[in-house]
C-alpha cells in the first residue's frame, strides 16, 4: 500500500469514542470500527482561511462584546504555537475559541447554570497564526461550571479551541485547561484522554506572556497531524 503523505490520527493520543464515565458517549459513539480510506485530493485539501477571515477585536474577548465597560474576571492572555508533528510551525492557520465567562456561564440558551451572564462578555474569538505559527488571545479566565453527567459533576475551567491546519485531515477541536485545577481527576471529558497525553491539554503559566499590571499569561501549544517523511525512492 502506498504510504500516505499525511500522518495518521494517533489513537494512542486521542480519546476513545466510547468512554463510559462520560455518559453522552453511550448513544453517540459509533459502534462499528472506522473504515480505512485511501488518501486523495479530498483528504489532502481543506478550507483555507487567512488573515482576511478575522477582524481587529476578534482575538480580544475583553473588548469584542463590551457594551458599557470591561468584563468581570481575571484577565488572561493565552498564546502558543500551532505546529505539525515534526515541530514545524503552521503559519496563517485559523484558530477559533469559545469559553464560559468568569462565573462559569455560557452565552447559550441551553446553559441553565444559575450564574450571572456578563453584559460585557460573550466569550467567542478567533485569530490567525503569524509567520511563526503563533496565535494570541486576550480574555478573562473562565469559571468552572456544574453539569448533569453525574451527581455533583463540575467541569474544570477550560477554553474550547477549533483549528483547521492544512487539510481536512488536520482538523481538530479540543479544550485547553489551566494548570493545577483540582477538578481534573473528577472530569470524565479530560479523563477520556489517555493518561500519557492528558497533560498536553493543560496550559502552562508563563511569566513571559504575563503583561505587567494587565493580564496573566498562559502558554498552550497545539500539535496537529503532520506529514510523513518522503519515502526513499530506490533505483529501478
Amino acid at each position, binding site marked *: 500500500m502506498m504510504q500516505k503523505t499525511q500522518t495518521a490520527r494517533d489513537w494512542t493520543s*486521542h480519546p476513545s469514542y466510547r468512554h463510559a464515565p*462520560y455518559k453522552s458517549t453511550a*448513544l453517540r459513539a459509533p459502534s462499528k470500527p472506522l473504515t480505512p480510506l485511501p488518501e486523495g485530493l*479530498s483528504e489532502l485539501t481543506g478550507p483555507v482561511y487567512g488573515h482576511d477571515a478575522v477582524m481587529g477585536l476578534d482575538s480580544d474577548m475583553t473588548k469584542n462584546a463590551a457594551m458599557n465597560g470591561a468584563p468581570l474576571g481575571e484577565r488572561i492572555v493565552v498564546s502558543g504555537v500551532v505546529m505539525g508533528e515534526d*515541530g514545524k510551525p503552521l503559519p496563517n492557520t485559523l484558530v*477559533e475559541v469559545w469559553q464560559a465567562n468568569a462565573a462559569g456561564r455560557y452565552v447559550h440558551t441551553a446553559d441553565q447554570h444559575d450564574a450571572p451572564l456578563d453584559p460585557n462578555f460573550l466569550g467567542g474569538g478567533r485569530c490567525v497564526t503569524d509567520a511563526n505559527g503563533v496565535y494570541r488571545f486576550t480574555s478573562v479566565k473562565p469559571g468552572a461550571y456544574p453539569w448533569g453527567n453525574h451527581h455533583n459533576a463540575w467541569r474544570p475551567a477550560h477554553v474550547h479551541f477549533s483549528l483547521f491546519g492544512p487539510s481536512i485531515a488536520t*482538523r481538530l477541536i479540543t479544550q485547553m485547561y489551566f494548570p493545577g485545577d483540582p477538578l481534573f481527576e473528577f472530569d470524565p471529558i479530560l479523563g477520556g484522554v489517555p493518561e500519557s497525553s492528558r497533560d498536553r491539554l493543560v496550559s502552562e503559566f508563563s511569566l513571559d506572556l504575563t503583561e505587567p499590571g494587565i493580564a496573566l499569561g498562559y502558554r498552550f501549544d497545539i500539535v496537529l*497531524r503532520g506529514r510523513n517523511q518522503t519515502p526513499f525512492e530506490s533505483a529501478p
Partner: protein
Amino acid sequence: MSDFQNPARGQTPSQTIGPFFAYGLTPAQYGYGHLTAIATGSLIGEGVEGQRITLAGRVLDGAGEAISDAMVEIWQADSQGRYSHPADPGGRNAPFVGFGRVGTGTDPGARFLFETIQPGAVPGDADQAPHINVILFARGLLNHLYTRVYFADQAAANAQDPVLAALPEDRRGTLIAERVETPAGVEYRWDIHLQGDKETVFFDL
C-alpha cells in the same frame, strides 16, 4: 520569538465540541452578532456556477433521536471537480470556497441544511464519483467523525467508485443521499446514523 521554539510533543488530543459552540463557531445561524461567521450553510453566491442543490438531513443517535446539538461541516469540489486549495493543481485559484458549517440547533426538525452546488468528479481522483466530504462534531463525540455523501442519481459513477466498492455491500447505502425534486429545487436527503443497523460508514481519516 526564541522562547516559542519547542520540540513537537505528539498530537494534541481531541475533545468534544460540547453543547455551547454556537456563539463561537456558528454565530450568524444562531443569532449571535458579535462575530461574523467564517462559514454558514450557504456555499452559493454571485458567480458560482453549477447545479444548485440542497443537502438536508439529521444526525441520529443510538436511540434514533435526532441530535439538536451537533455541528456538521462539509468540504467539496466545485462543479468542475476543483478544490479551492493549493494542493489541487487545477483548483488553487478556483473561486468556489467549498466549505460550509451548520449546527443542528436552529431547525425545528434538528436538520442540517446546506445550500450548495453539485460537485463535479475530481480529475486528480479520476475513479471517484462526485461526493461531498463531511466532518461531524457533537456533544458526546470525543473525536470528530469523517464521512462522505454520494448522490443516488449518479449510479453509474457510484458503481465505479473504489471507496464505495471497498465497503460491505449492505453499508454502501449509508453514504448515498436520496434525490428529491421539491418546488424549491433539487434536494438531497441524507441522515447520519451514529449507531445501529443503519450506522453510517465513518472513515479512519
